[in-house]
Structures are given as structure tokens and as C-alpha cells.
């Protein structure tokens, strides 16, 4: 859009363009519908079906805006994996023998594979509901907060928009990251414990190969899997959370400039440690009902210690270079194999984990490749870290199948700057005291002058300061609040304010039924006199 065009735009068109630019700066795809007095901007979050609907209406005083959240049910899609596990554990609870029957016939026990060998069904069900609920609620909260930011940046009258900083609460980012990493940890645990879900004949052979008992082998496997999960999940969490942080700062360059480097580093570190502790708590609670059924207190303490130290290490690695974290994970997996091989000489309980770690090296390599989705989406103009390490990118797949064209957000910064400078000139106009052109108003109707005079008297009762467009709308709200108890009068006054708006700003307006509104204005004045 060139500058000459923007100058010719009507206020409605300008408002529509502004909300479009804003939505795109939040990483949304937009569609615009323009009418004579009304414009609608629909914003869809790219590769994720979040919809925001902004209706822009031209009024006498300026352009008004209302923002609505649409398709709320999409937030519940985050619960799909939880639903899958809930259904499985419900079936197991109702027919406990189904798993064993399956193992005998098919060779492996589907329920033991996905829910662990010694599942505590009732506890698991409750935990699944609680954790799934937390994720969904946090998703809805994040959307609501985002909406509030849009609305706050666009007050009811567009030209008075305030460009406040958008800082989504840290906790919501943490929970959103936890959702992704929790499922990766779950999938790794399924891989690790899969052989124990096979039929008893196969397990017997499996155990004899390693010349040990099943309980011994399980003990060693559980111990190493605890270490694996705590190290891998805290390291991946660091990458995800710090990506979120840099993403948020990209939105607000002001925020980044105001922060001091050293202070910033420590807060980053503390946030990551706090986040990983929350993550490992979620994991211990959930998986202790599935895979880690006999956790001891010492093991829990050890897990927390490993998590804290590895998250501190990972933040340090991230500061050097993001990919060092993956190199570290590979080294950990390889060296743990070496250590396990030697400690296996006395007690063959690590035998299975040695083989398993060989394959987990491949999994970590896969996780490293997953990072490319972030840079790929950034190429497309989608700045959304929640796609990193997301094991179920259903909506991205749908988007690929639809082959919808994506409007890039690349030019957004420039357009935002343009709007900002445009606004500055308008703001000065708005902040200057209101001068009422009485001559023009008297031309609009017989009683027009009377109405405005009474209105002025009412305003004088409320404030002694100069009045401008913005303060006037605040004063109107205050007046309505004062006469809250008188329902009938309140409705009439709302009509009156609309008429006053037209009288003040609408040049082509002609007043009808003037005497009726004079009456209302006088009623209001007497009501205000009683209170103030």
C-alpha cells in the first residue's frame, strides 16, 4: 500500500487496515469484509485454527471496534491424546483381563504398552483428567489474554489506540511447553518399556537371554529411564521456553531494549529451572501411575537433582549455541552405554537399557531434525514456537492438504510504523480541548442548542477540567454509573448520548423529536444534582 492511497482512505477503511496489520503481527492469517458502515476482519492463527473476529463499525464520533473469539472448541483438541489414554484405561478398568487375553492371542498387550505394566487405573484416570484440564484451560486463558491485548490496543474509538506492550504470562508459556515435552517423554517411555508388555512366553525368553530375573531387569530399566526422561525433557524444555521468550521479545522490541544483560540472564535461568521442575513434577505424577509404579523417595530426590542441574547446564549450552544441547544428549546416551556395560558385569540389570540407548540415539537425532519445522515456518512468516517438538502436528498436516496460501507477516513491521506516525498527528488533535461549534449545531435542529447546553452543565458537575474526545467517553460511562439504579432513565440516556454524538460530530445530521431529548437531558441533570 502506497502512502498516497492511505491518505484517501475513509476512517472505516483505515480502521480495517489497522486491525488487519495488528492481527498479522500476532501471526494470524486475515480475511477482510468491507461494507458501507461496517467492516469485519477475521483472523485465523496460521497452521492452527484459532479464530478472532473483529467487527469495525463507523459511528458518528469515529470508528468503534468489538473483538470476539470464535471456535472455542478447537482448544479442546489438545485433549485428544488424553482422551485416547482415558478410553484405554476405562476399558482396562471395566474388563481387567482383556490385556492378558490380547497378549496370548496377538503376542503383545496393547494396554500394558500404552498404560504401563502395573497400571493404577483409578489414580491414572484422575491424573489424566486433571493434567488434560490444566492444558486446555491454559490454552483458553492464553487466547482470552491475547484477545484482551488486541482489544486494549484498540480502544472503542480507534484513533485513540494505545500501543502497550504485550507480555503473555510466563506460566502459560511454561504450560504450553510442558504439553509438548510431556508427550515426547511419554513416547520415549513407551519405547523403553515395550518389551515388558509382550506375552509371558516371550518375556521368559527375553529374560533368559540376559541371565537375570524380570524384577531385576525392570528395576534397572526404571532407574535408567528416570535419568533419561529427566535429562532429555529438561534439555528440550530449555530450548522450547527460551524460543518462546525470544518470540515474545520480537513482538515488543521496546521490552528487549529496556532489559539489562546480566539481570536478564539470571531471570532466564531461574525461569527455566522453575519450568523444568514443574515439568518433572507433571511427569512423575503422571508416569508413577503408568511406568514408574514403585518409585522410592531417594529416586524422586535424585530425579529432581538431575533435572535442576541439567536445566542449568542446558541454559548455559543454549547461550553458547542451541545445537550443543543435542550434541550433549547424544554424548550422554553414548557414555551411559559405556558405563552401563561395565556396571553390568556384577548385575545384568542394565542389559536391556544398553540396547535401548543405542536406538534412543536415533530418537534424539530425530528430535534434532524436528527443529527445522520452526525455521521452515519462520520462512513462511509464522512465528510460533509451539510447533517445536510437537508430536501431533495435526493442523499443520491439514494446512498442507488444504494448500491454503499464507499471507506473510514480513512487511508488518513497516506497516505498523506507518500507522504509528499517522496516529501521532491524530492523537494531538484528540488530546486538544474540545471546542463546540454552536453555530453549526443550531443549524441541525430546533432544540439542538438546548440539549448541548444541558449536557455541558452535566459535564461541569462531573469535572472541572478541559474535555476532549477521549475524556468525553469516560465521562459518559461515569454518568451511566451514577444513575445505575434507575433502569428506565439509563436506557433513555444511552439514546441521548448517541444523539449528542451526532450533534457534535456528524455534519449531515438533522435532529428530529428534539423536545423529547431536551426532557431526558433535564431529567438526567436533576438526577445528577441529587448525587453530586
Amino acid at each position, binding site marked *: 500500500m502506497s502512502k498516497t492511497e492511505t491518505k484517501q482512505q475513509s476512517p472505516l477503511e483505515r480502521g480495517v487496515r489497522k486491525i488487519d496489520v495488528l492481527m498479522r503481527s500476532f501471526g494470524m492469517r486475515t480475511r477482510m469484509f468491507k461494507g458501507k458502515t461496517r467492516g469485519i476482519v477475521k483472523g485465523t492463527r496460521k497452521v492452527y485454527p484459532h479464530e478472532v473476529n473483529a467487527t469495525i463499525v463507523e459511528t458518528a464520533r469515529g470508528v468503534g471496534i468489538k473483538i470476539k473469539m470464535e471456535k472455542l472448541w478447537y482448544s479442546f483438541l489438545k485433549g485428544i491424546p488424553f482422551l485416547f489414554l482415558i478410553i484405554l484405561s476405562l476399558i482396562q478398568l471395566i474388563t481387567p483381563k482383556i490385556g492378558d487375553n490380547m497378549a496370548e492371542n496377538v503376542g503383545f498387550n496393547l494396554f500394558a504398552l500404552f498404560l504401563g505394566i502395573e497400571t493404577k487405573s483409578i489414580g491414572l484416570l484422575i491424573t489424566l483428567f486433571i493434567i488434560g484440564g490444566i492444558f486446555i484451560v491454559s490454552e483458553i486463558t492464553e487466547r482470552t489474554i491475547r484477545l484482551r491485548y488486541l482489544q486494549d490496543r484498540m480502544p472503542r474509538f480507534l484513533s485513540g489506540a494505545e500501543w502497550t506492550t504485550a507480555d503473555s504470562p510466563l506460566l502459560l508459556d511454561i504450560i504450553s511447553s510442558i504439553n509438548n515435552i510431556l508427550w515426547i517423554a511419554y513416547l520415549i517411555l513407551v519405547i523403553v518399556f515395550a518389551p515388558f508388555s509382550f506375552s509371558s512366553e516371550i518375556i521368559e525368553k527375553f529374560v533368559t537371554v*540376559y541371565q537375570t530375573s524380570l524384577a531385576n531387569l525392570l528395576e534397572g530399566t526404571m532407574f535408567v529411564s528416570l535419568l533419561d526422561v529427566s535429562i532429555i525433557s529438561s534439555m528440550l524444555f530449555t530450548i522450547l521456553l527460551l524460543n518462546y521468550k525470544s518470540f515474545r521479545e520480537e513482538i515488543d522490541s521496546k521490552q528487549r531494549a529496556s532489559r539489562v544483560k546480566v539481570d536478564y540472564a539470571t531471570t532466564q535461568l531461574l525461569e527455566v529451572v522453575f519450568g523444568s521442575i514443574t515439568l518433572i513434577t507433571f511427569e512423575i505424577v503422571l508416569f508413577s501411575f503408568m511406568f514408574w509404579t514403585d518409585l522410592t523417595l531417594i529416586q524422586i530426590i535424585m530425579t529432581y537433582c538431575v533435572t535442576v542441574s541439567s536445566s542449568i*547446564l542446558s541454559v548455559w549450552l543454549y547461550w553458547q549455541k542451541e545445537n550443543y544441547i543435542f550434541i550433549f544428549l547424544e554424548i550422554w546416551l553414548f557414555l551411559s552405554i559405556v558405563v552401563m556395560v561395565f556396571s553390568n558385569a556384577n548385575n*545384568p540389570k542394565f542389559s536391556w537399557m544398553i540396547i535401548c540407548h543405542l536406538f534412543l540415539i536415533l530418537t534424539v537425532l530425530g*528430535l534434532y531434525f524436528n527443529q527445522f519445522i520452526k525455521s521452515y515456518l519462520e520462512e513462511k512468516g509464522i512465528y510460533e514456537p509451539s510447533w517445536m517438538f510437537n508430536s501431533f502436528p495435526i493442523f499443520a498436516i491439514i494446512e498442507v492438504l488444504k494448500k491454503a496460501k499464507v499471507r506473510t507477516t514480513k512487511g508488518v513491521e513497516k506497516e505498523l510504523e506507518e500507522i504509528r506516525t499517522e496516529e501521532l498527528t491524530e492523537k494531538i488533535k484528540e488530546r486538544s480541548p474540545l471546542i463546540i461549534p454552536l453555530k453549526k449545531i443550531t443549524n441541525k435542529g430546533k432544540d439542538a442548542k438546548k440539549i448541548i447546553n444541558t449536557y455541558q452543565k452535566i459535564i461541569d458537575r462531573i469535572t472541572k477540567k478541559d474535555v476532549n474526545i477521549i475524556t468525553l467517553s469516560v465521562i459518559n460511562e461515569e454518568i451511566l454509573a451514577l444513575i445505575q439504579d434507575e433502569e428506565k432513565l439509563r436506557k433513555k440516556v444511552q439514546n441521548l448520548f448517541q444523539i449528542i454524538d451526532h450533534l457534535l460530530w456528524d455534519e449531515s445530521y438533522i435532529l428530529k423529536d428534539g423536545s423529547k431529548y431536551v426532557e431526558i437531558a433535564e431529567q438526567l441533570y436533576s438526577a445528577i444534582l441529587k448525587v453530586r
Partner: protein
Amino acid sequence: MKQITKFIIFSIFASLIIFQFNNVNAKETVFTATEIIDINETTQITVSMAAPLTWEINTGINISVSIKLSQIAQNDSLFITYIKTEYNIPGKQFPENQQISIIEDNLTYIGEEFNINQTRYAPENTDEFNITLSILAQTVNMTNTEEFSMDFPGKDEDNIIIKKNLVIPVINLPGFPNIETFSRWIIIFIVIQLIIMSPAILVLYFKISKQKTRSRSQRKKKRRGENE
């Protein structure tokens, strides 16, 4: 490079420390089983046998047997010809590794004791077993000889466990699991690996499809150029 060497060293130490915690061996103690055996109405002996409950393969294990005369009639004496040990291996019909030690000793007064220390080796091809100790004894008044026996470690105790491979191999790496387990597991592994890698696969798909369209458009351009 410096940083890489730093965290290699760090991870070596960390993993060594972590695995040390988990690797505590219980010390073996010697177990003693005691049984009172009636030879006849007037004669009674107390036999106790002591040996560890965990045997290492290819290592000599010391077992000690003591026979104490606890009751005997006057002017009578007990004559022990030999003691015999046999290994009872679960799942096998007959006892194995019969070993006889000839003693030919007389016990005459109450409280008199006979002690013997012997070395035995653990049987191969089994994880656990128990021992039957038999004593051939006879008093002067008795006309026929008879074998009296007791079980070690006893009917209420667990069997003796054989600890294998403690000395010979430094590394115990039996390798990949059996075919049945591995073939099932590798399918599960591949499926889950694909799920984990799905974002990466998606990017790969994007890139390939983009390249295809690009090469197509290039071909079209080339054709146009040729036509012109």
C-alpha cells in the same frame, strides 16, 4: 572445541557418580542349618552344617559339618562310617555330584563332637540347588547299618543360588534380545519414532513438493525459450 571437551568430561563424571550409587553388593554370610536326628530309641545326634547361600561358579566353597552326640545309653558307642553330600537340582529326578568322605570314627560320651571341613564346587547348568547330607551311622547294639539324612539349607529356606560370571567376564553384554521380542519391539520403535519425527517429516514433504513445482516451472520456461 574447548566447550565440547568440557562437557564430555562433565558427563563422564556425572554418569560415573550416578551409577556408583546404584551399584551396592550385599556381603555374603554363612548360613548354618541344624537338625536333631534319632539313631534309635536311646541314641540321638545333633548335626549342623554351615555354608554360604550364594555360591560362585568355579570357586571352591568351604562347607563345615559338625556331629554332636546328644543322647546315648550307657556302655554304648556310635560309630560313623562316612558322610555323603548330594546336590538336588530342581527339575531333575536324581541327585547329582555324590561325594563321600570316609570317617570311621567313634563317639562314646554325651557332648562329644566330631567336626569336618570340606571343599565343594557348585554344579553347572543350573541357577539354584540344595544339598542332602547323609550320615552312615551305627551303634554297637544295632545289627544293621542305616543312612540318616538332612537337607541343607532346609525345607523352609530358599535354595542355594549360584552366582555366575563374577570372575571371568569383565563385560556382560549378552547382546540383542531374542528374535520374538526384537521383531515386535522394532516395529513399535519405528512407529513411535515416526510419530516423534512427524514435524521433521512434514518439513521434508514441504521441501520436496516445493522443489518439484520449481523444477516444473523451470521446465516450462525452458520450453517457452525453445519455442521462441
